[in-house]
């Protein structure tokens, strides 16, 4: 009986886990649109995703912005289930995430399964992977500009959604009709509630080792969004926006000896991570005249990561407590003032200034040790780390010039000043774009952008931990620099068909890889533990879309090369780990009935690359000739989903029940590899996959 209960519990929990994994599915079928901005005809490499696309085209009712972006041409996700995007051969750490103009530093929850953006709050997303407008800077590969939705000024409404891994609730409405509104959302993940009993149920203690041994795991994530909008007058709108996100993960081992005897002893080991974001901003939009508009943003943004180790030894007569925390933190206080100006005929001007004060604590060690009791009493506290106060200033201007009804030119310039300890970096970043539209259906564009990134996000490649370390450019670590040239042709013969072909060339300098001997960089000398390199990528992207009353089908294919040159690793260019030569994503949505939508997404891309030893014994082979010399088989999977909608008799209430399956045909896509030896002492490559077929269910209520 006990076995049966445990079995059912395990099955249930596996369902929980797999449901979490299935969130990939919902994300991948959100259909995006190539929609040029009406006010900028020269914009290349930009994709706009509207709120309606998220809301009505999600498979599980929880669309995810980053997972959606991963399905676009020129974008790869790196590892399965990750919450990062590698854009046109970028590093994954070079994307600017903006939440109502404010940068966010941690983009993922729960090991990347969820992104930090709650789509119930999102109005639209503008995704730039080239042709960057001059107002954007500070990152080298992409800009994810997320606009939050103002609360409804005239009626209350909301969303409630529940799945097996998380739930979310969103509510919006007027505080003062037509003047002041609120929009609030919370999300909470409850994976821990099921994982903890599972760990306790299945773990068999080694009785010979101790009297009572327990193992426990904790995981939780939650986030809160709130936006208040005040329409002060017909010319002024002020909004206050806040976001708090929190992740916690730990693994505990506990031992008990001796019960209540005099030899009583308890040992507790805890190993874990905490990470998250905090954001607070105020935005003032003012129409200076019919043709000029000013948007001012004042903000505080904080991203942190803490890897900690805790040890408690409690004896019958005294106790020891030891806590070590490795903390990385970045805090920004900033202000932006942006102007749009259409005063001059045939000119559309954008200009502004941005100032931000960064406080970096790249890696700090805090250590405390306490002994108390009859034996001795002792306390020790120690902390070590460097803090960097780094002001950053940017000035920019650009002009969209209508040369003729068919020819448009955009020229811009951005200047950046970044001051760090004993060093100042200046950068002039030219932006240029030209568009020729011979008719309404066809457009041809080229663009040129240079971008500078004065901060580095470095992850120890030995660690798969969720956190990351934000480090400033210093006198020895230079800002990352990129140059992107794009050319694009788009043909939209009618409302049903869209074809887009884009080519890109990209160069990157001052990339850094961690080379230290420890899992975490040394707090005292982290700058000495990195080696510098450069990168380049080029490719061509194809996107096609067909929409009809019943069907909405899109296909994105990318043929690209992504290479790196790190002299410390190899004396020539070599393929990047995520050099996925071919990348194909096909989405299909079939409106089978007014209340039933069926979705499917098929993903196919070349496998990731790993470095395997070639010379020496297999277990100690240390010579590989060149990095990333082995490519795993192609990654592919099919996700399907179906939405059943019901409309309540009470007006305005929709219910959606979503069934979905991730990786329908259980493709064993390698998640990581290891070298093993067979019975004949011959080495072979073992590829482990951890996401086979995963069904899930979700219920969502719109009221």
């Amino acid at each position, binding site marked *: 009986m006990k*076995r049966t209960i445990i*079995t059912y519990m395990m099955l249930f929990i596996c369902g929980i886990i797999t449901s979490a994994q299935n969130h990939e599915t919902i994300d991948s079928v959100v259909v995006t649109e190539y929609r040029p901005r009406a006010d900028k005809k020269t914009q290349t490499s930009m994709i706009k995703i509207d709120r309606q696309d998220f809301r009505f085209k999600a498979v599980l009712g929880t669309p995810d912005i980053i997972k959606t972006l991963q399905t676009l041409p020129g974008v790869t996700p790196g590892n399965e289930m990750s919450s990062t995007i590698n854009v046109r051969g970028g590093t994954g750490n070079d994307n600017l995430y903006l939440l109502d103009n404010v940068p966010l530093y941690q983009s993922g929850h729960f090991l990347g399964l969820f992104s930090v953006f709650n789509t119930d709050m999102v109005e639209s997303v503008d995704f730039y992977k080239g042709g960057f407008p001059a107002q954007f800077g500070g990152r080298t590969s992409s800009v994810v500009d997320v606009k939050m939705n103002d609360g409804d000024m005239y009626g209350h409404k909301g969303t409630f959604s529940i799945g097996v891994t998380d739930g979310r609730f969103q509510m919006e409405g007027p505080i003062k009709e037509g003047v002041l509104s609120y929009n609030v959302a919370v999300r909470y993940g409850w994976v821990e509630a099921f*994982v903890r009993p599972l760990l306790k149920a*299945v773990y068999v203690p080694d009785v010979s080792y101790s009297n009572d041994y327990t193992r426990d795991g904790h995981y939780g994530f939650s986030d809160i969004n709130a936006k208040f909008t005040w329409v002060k007058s017909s010319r002024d709108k002020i909004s206050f926006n806040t976001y708090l996100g929190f992740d916690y993960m730990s693994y505990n081992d506990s031992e008990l000896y001796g019960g209540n005897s005099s030899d009583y002893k308890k040992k507790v080991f805890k190993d874990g991570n905490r990470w998250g974001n905090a954001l607070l901003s105020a935005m003032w939009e003012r129409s200076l005249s019919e043709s000029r508009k000013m948007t001012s943003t004042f903000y505080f943004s904080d991203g942190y990561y803490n890897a900690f180790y805790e040890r408690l030894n409690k004896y019958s007569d005294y106790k020891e407590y030891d806590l070590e925390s490795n903390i990385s933190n970045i805090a920004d206080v900033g202000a932006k003032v942006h102007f749009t100006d259409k005063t001059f005929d045939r000119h559309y001007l954008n200009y502004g200034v941005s100032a931000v004060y960064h406080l970096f604590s790249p890696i700090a060690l805090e250590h405390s040790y306490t002994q108390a009791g009859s034996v001795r009493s002792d306390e020790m506290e120690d902390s070590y780390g460097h803090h960097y106060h780094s002001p950053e200033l940017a000035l920019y201007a650009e002009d969209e010039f209508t040369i003729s009804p068919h020819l448009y030119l955009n020229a811009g310039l951005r200047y950046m000043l970044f001051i760090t300890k004993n060093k100042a970096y200046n950068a002039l970043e030219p932006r240029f774009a030209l568009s020729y539209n011979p008719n309404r259906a066809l457009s041809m564009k080229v663009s040129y952008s240079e971008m500078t990134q004065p901060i580095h996000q470095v992850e120890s490649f030995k660690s798969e931990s969720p956190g990351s370390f934000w480090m400033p450019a210093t006198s020895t670590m230079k800002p990352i620099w990129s140059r992107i040239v794009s050319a694009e042709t788009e043909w939209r013969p009618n409302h049903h068909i869209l074809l887009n072909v884009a080519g890109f060339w990209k160069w990157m300098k001052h990339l850094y890889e961690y080379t230290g001997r420890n899992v975490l960089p040394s707090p005292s000398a982290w700058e000495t533990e990195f080696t510098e390199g450069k990168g380049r990528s080029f490719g061509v992207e194809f996107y096609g879309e067909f929409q009809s009353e019943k069907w909405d089908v899109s296909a994105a294919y990318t043929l690209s090369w992504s290479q790196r040159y790190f002299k410390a690793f190899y004396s020539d260019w070599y393929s990047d780990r995520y050099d996925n030569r071919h990348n194909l994503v096909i989405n299909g949505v079939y409106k089978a009935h007014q209340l039933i939508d069926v979705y499917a997404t098929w993903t196919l891309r070349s496998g990731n690359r790993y470095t*395997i030893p*070639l*010379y020496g014994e297999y277990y100690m082979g240390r010579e*590989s000739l060149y990095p990333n010399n082995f490519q795993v*088989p192609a990654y592919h999977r099919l996700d399907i989903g179906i939405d059943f909608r019901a409309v309540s008799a009470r007006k305005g209430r929709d219910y959606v029940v979503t069934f979905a399956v991730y990786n329908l045909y259980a493709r064993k896509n390698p998640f990581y590899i290891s070298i093993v030896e067979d019975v004949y002492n011959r080495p072979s490559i073992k590829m482990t996959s951890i996401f086979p077929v995963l069904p899930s269910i979700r219920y969502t209520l719109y009221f």
Partner: protein
Amino acid sequence: MVPVALEVRAALEDADPKLISMKNILLFICLFLLTAACDSYAPYPVLADEDALLKLECTVGEADSTVVYVSKEYLITYDHRPSDTDSEPLNSSLKFTVNGEELECIKYINEGGDRYVVHYVAHSGDVVEVFCSAPGVPDATAETVVPEAPADLVKDFNYTVEDNTLKGRLALNGSQTGSLYLSADLDITNVIHKYEYEDDVYIGSRSFHLSDPLSVKGIGEWIIDYRLPREYIGIDDEGRMIREIIDTEIRFNLKISSEELYFATLHQQSSSMSPSSYTNVKGGLGYVGAMKVLTLDTYISEAQ
């Protein structure tokens, strides 16, 4: 997540078969799809042209003589590699030149390969070339240049001895440090000249060396904090207490590595165990690098 799934699977394997109804069978199938057989295997790919390559390991300038280690590295898929107890002689030959002039090499044949000793004291700017050949493998050649220390490199160097502990600081001119591969350590020679075995005292002398890297405080800055080993108390093989009194000579060394040596060392010190792809040996593996050692001062402590 993976350990969880494995533990679930392990528990299921122990389940009582009598309890498995049709409903449970369906659930088992689902669970199997979710957790089972997630591993697949691929044969080892053929990614290299040669069955074996010569590996050179040489650091020029670290000592008064230079040693070149030569070994033969086989493909890990190679079926005919010699076992440890049946090593074939390498039969290598080596040519060591400095600024174009060939120097005499003394060859020692070891079990794992050959060792060549060259009596050569490195000077900054020397161009060192190594050429090695052996039957059945491609020739290997490498080159390095002994690095040079700028005259005003050291900005601050001081130390004191308090409570039997060396404390101090070494700092370099910031503008110089960016282009150099630097490290600093204490080169310690302990001389034991008196042994006390419980009630008996023996007079003798022996020495041993060790190297203690200095703690890095920042870019081009190190902290000296070393407790002097004035005596050592231990237990000998027969269980008697040993008290050894020693003299200590400490050299404060600043080391400037050539790029090749620095890059090769990165992989040796890395805990990732990822295979190294760096080499400056053309046609082979390994490295030939150089080091300039600057001894800033020498401290000698005498036995009390």
